[in-house]
């Protein structure tokens, strides 16, 4: 279980050329890449074992989409590089879950605590806020975890929901052979910079309802302090 939150994050799936977009939730390729970096794999190293993991995310705090219009010049300042738009999610928080063999998951959890390469949220310029891993859970499926883990949004965001429970969006790897679902080009086959390759992955979108820890039974509408009640003879 990972909590992905930071000032900025960016999870591109279909970016081409100078318009680098972000999905509204972390991509499997992004998280697999993060795990690969934590375990110290280089770009060209095999990642087949990571692809056996089942993956799901929950949008605990959607954040806001921000656009960065970027200009750059070559080091000597002579030529300008192509202008580009980069999109980020600001102030978002996600719960990402990977499911797999116990030993392998423990190994990954350990790697996240002692990463070999620096970890970041989709793009090198997006450092995570706080520890990434929330630990492991034995015998639970992705759906179990997404449905039962406490809400991991920032307290200030939670307080804006004045209800005892909240409904959060989830995006989970579809069961093999599932009838419906959306297909995204988000199955990393190779991170080799010379030849990046992504396969297709089918996802199922859904929602889960979790408790809002900041909810308090609404205060009485009337001020509890009624000084006139202490007086006689009005």
């Amino acid at each position, binding site marked *: 279980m990972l909590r992905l939150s930071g000032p900025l994050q960016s999870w591109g799936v279909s970016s081409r050329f100078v318009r680098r977009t972000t999905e509204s939730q972390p991509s499997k390729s992004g998280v697999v890449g993060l795990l690969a970096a934590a375990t110290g794999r280089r770009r060209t190293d095999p990642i087949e074992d990571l692809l056996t993991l089942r993956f799901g995310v929950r949008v605990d705090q959607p954040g806001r989409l921000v656009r960065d219009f970027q200009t750059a010049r070559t080091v000597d300042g002579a030529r300008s590089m192509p202008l580009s738009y980069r999109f980020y999610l600001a102030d978002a928080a996600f719960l990402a879950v990977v499911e797999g063999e116990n030993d392998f998951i423990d190994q990954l959890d350990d790697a996240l605590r002692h990463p070999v390469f620096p970890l970041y949220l989709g793009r090198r310029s997006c450092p995570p806020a706080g520890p990434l891993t929330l630990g492991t859970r034995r015998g639970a499926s992705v759906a179990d975890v997404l449905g039962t883990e406490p809400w991991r949004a920032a307290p200030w965001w939670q307080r804006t929901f004045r209800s005892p429970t909240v409904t959060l969006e989830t995006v989970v790897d579809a069961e093999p052979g599932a009838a419906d679902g959306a297909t995204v080009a988000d199955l990393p086959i190779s991170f080799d910079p010379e030849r990046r390759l992504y396969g297709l992955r089918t996802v199922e979108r859904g929602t889960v309802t979790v408790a809002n820890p900041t909810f308090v039974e609404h205060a*009485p*509408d*009337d*001020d*509890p*302090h*009624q*000084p*006139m*009640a*202490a*007086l*006689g*003879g*009005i």
Partner: protein
Amino acid sequence: MHLTQFEINPARRGAQKLLGSPQAMHAAVLAGFPGDDVGRGRILWRVDSGPRHTYLYVSSVRRPDLTHLVEQAGWPTTATWSTGDLSGLLDSLAVGQEWGFRLTANPTRSTRVGDRERSQRVGCVTAEHQLDWFLTRVARWGIRIPTSGGSPSVMVNRRDVRSFRRQDDRVTLAMATFDGRLEVVDPDLLRAAMVDGIGPAKAYGCGLLTLAPLGRA
């Protein structure tokens, strides 16, 4: 002594002017008394704004006439104000009683600013300082704050730094509203604190301590 409750209609322009400037409210409250009443005892007031009601409380020796306030900032065709006799409550204060209370005050401390010769009064701006200010003074008001679960049963419910014009000057006040429970230790001291007010800025909506029966909070 009298305590008056007046409900402010915040939708009215007159109300916004009064709520926006303690100086204007001060003038409006004093205008509720004929000239020779003003010199007689302290007139204290406070605004309690809640989610549904905004009340002005005034404590005074004589009954006020707030007709002008109703016209400016109330509901002229339906609502007026209510004045109750505070003397009964003041007389019935006895050692050991427990009351709910509210106090909006201007907590200050004196400190030397720069290389001036005399120290200067500055407002306490953090909640901790304000609570400290309150708790170190309760004994001289003849009260004790009971503790519940190890901490005193009082909290700073609202904090404000109000800044407004007074003729050609600018007045800046750090205000804090204390809500909680108190126990009467010395009825005479408490009576004096309630009649004369507590702390600085009494003209500007600070210093009025009101009591309310416990149980609803």
